[in-house]
C-alpha cells in the first residue's frame, strides 16, 4: 500500500486528526497491549515495524517500565512521537497470537487501518474469565511439580487442594482489584498453611516438599524468561523492569511462605 492509498483509506474512517496521527496512536496502543500481554521486545519491534512499513513509515519503539513510545518517521525525515501507558493485561499468549496475526493481515493488505482498528478492539476486548478449567489445571500442574520434586501421593493431594484454594483466592482478589503484591503474599500464605496439613496430621513422608512446592504456581516464570530474552536482545531497561517486577512478586510470595512456616512452627 502506498502513502497515497493510506491517506485515501484513512479519509473515510472515524479517526480524528490526520492519517499519520491515527496510525501513530494505533501503533502506540498496539505496542502497549503487546507489552502488557507478555510479548518480548523483539516481537513488539518486529510487529510494529511491519505495520508501519506497510503504510510507508518507519517505527522505532522505546519500551519503558510504565509506558511505550513509538517514533514514527517518514522518508522526508519528519518524526512524530506517540506515547501510551502500558496495559496490565496479565500474561496472555492468545492475545499475543491474535495481535501478531493482525500485523501480518495488515502487511498482506487484507485489512485497511479502519478494519485493523476494529479487529484490534475485538481482540483486546475479549473477556478472559479465570474459569474452573484453569483452576483445576493449575492445581494439577502444581501437584505434578510436587511429584517432580520428590513428593509422595499424600503430598501431591494436599498440594492440589492448597493450590486450588490459593488460586481460587487469586481469582477473587484479581476481580477485587487488590494490590498484586498483597494478594501474592496472602495466596502464598494460605496455600503454604494448607500444605502444612501433611506435617500436622502426619500424612505421607514428604511434608517439607508439600509446603515448599505449594506456592510454586505463583512464581512469575514468564516475566523471568521475558527479562532474560530482552536482555539478550539488548533491551536492558525493559529487561530490568520485567526482572524487578518478577523479583518483587517472588519476594511477596516467599514472605507469605515464610510467615506461614513461622506461624505453623509456633502452633506445632
Amino acid at each position, binding site marked *: 500500500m502506498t502513502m497515497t492509498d493510506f491517506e485515501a483509506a484513512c479519509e473515510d474512517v472515524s479517526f480524528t486528526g490526520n492519517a499519520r496521527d491515527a496510525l501513530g496512536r494505533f501503533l502506540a496502543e498496539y505496542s502497549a497491549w503487546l507489552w502488557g500481554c*507478555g*510479548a*518480548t521486545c523483539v*516481537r513488539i519491534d*518486529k510487529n510494529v515495524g511491519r505495520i508501519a512499513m506497510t503504510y510507508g513509515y518507519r517505527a522505532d519503539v522505546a519500551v519503558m517500565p510504565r509506558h511505550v513510545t513509538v517514533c514514527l518517521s517518514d522518508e522526508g525525515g519528519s518524526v512524530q512521537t506517540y506515547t501510551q501507558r502500558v496495559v496490565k493485561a*496479565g*500474561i*496472555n*499468549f*492468545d*492475545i*499475543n*497470537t491474535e495481535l*501478531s*496475526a493482525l*500485523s*501480518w493481515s495488515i*502487511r*498482506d493488505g487484507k485489512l485497511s487501518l479502519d478494519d485493523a482498528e476494529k479487529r484490534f478492539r475485538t481482540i483486546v476486548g475479549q473477556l*478472559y474469565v479465570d474459569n474452573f*478449567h*484453569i483452576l483445576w*489445571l*493449575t*492445581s*494439577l*500442574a*502444581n501437584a*505434578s*511439580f510436587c*511429584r*517432580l*520434586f520428590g513428593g509422595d501421593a499424600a503430598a501431591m493431594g494436599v498440594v492440589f487442594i492448597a493450590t486450588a484454594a490459593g488460586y481460587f483466592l487469586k481469582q477473587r482478589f484479581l476481580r477485587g482489584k487488590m494490590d498484586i503484591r498483597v494478594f501474592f503474599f496472602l495466596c502464598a500464605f494460605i496455600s503454604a498453611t494448607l500444605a502444612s496439613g501433611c506435617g500436622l496430621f502426619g500424612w505421607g513422608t514428604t511434608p517439607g516438599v508439600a509446603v*515448599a*512446592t505449594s*506456592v*510454586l*504456581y505463583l*512464581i512469575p*516464570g*514468564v516475566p*523471568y*524468561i521475558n527479562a*532474560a*530474552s530482552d*536482555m*539478550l536482545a539488548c533491551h536492558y531497561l525493559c529487561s530490568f523492569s520485567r526482572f524487578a517486577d518478577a523479583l518483587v512478586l*517472588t*519476594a511477596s*510470595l*516467599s*514472605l507469605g*511462605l*515464610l510467615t506461614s512456616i513461622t506461624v505453623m512452627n509456633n502452633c506445632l
Partner: protein
Amino acid sequence: MTDDSIISWTVFFDDALFSAMAAIGFSSISHTPRRAYILCAVAAAAGHLLRFLLTMPGGIEMNIIAAATIAAFIVGIIAVFVAKVIKVPAEACLFPALLPMIPGLYACRAFEGFVGCLSNLDETLFSHNLYLFMSNGMTCGAIVIGMTIGANIPIFLMKKISFQVTR
C-alpha cells in the same frame, strides 16, 4: 527385563508425564491458545526428561545449569517447528514448555536465606544464611539465563519461521 530397568523406566515415565501435566497447567494460566496445549506438553516432557537424564546420578551427572541450557535448546527447536504447525508465535509454545524447568525452589530458598541474614546477627548463622542466599540466588539466575539463551538460539537461527508463523 530386570527389576532395576523397570524402576528406571518408571522414573523416566514419571518425569516426562508430570512435567507434561505441569506444562498444560501453565499453558492454561498464560492463556495459551488451546490448540497448543498438547504440543507444549510434548515439548516440556522432552526438555525435562533430557535435563533429568543429563543430571541424574550415575549417568552423565552434568551441572544443572549446562543441562538446563541444553534441554531448553531442544525445547526451543521443538517449539519453533510446533509453532509453524499450529500457527502460534514460537514463544507461546516455548514459554509454557520451559516453565516446569524454572528454578522456583531456588528462588524461594534464596529469599529464605536473605531473610535469615536479616534476622540472625550471630556471625556463623549470618554467614550460613548469606551462603544460602548467594548460592541459591546465583544458581537460580544462571539457570534462567542459560535456559533463555538455549531456548532463544533456535528462534534466532530460524527467524523466518519464528516470526512468520502467524501469517
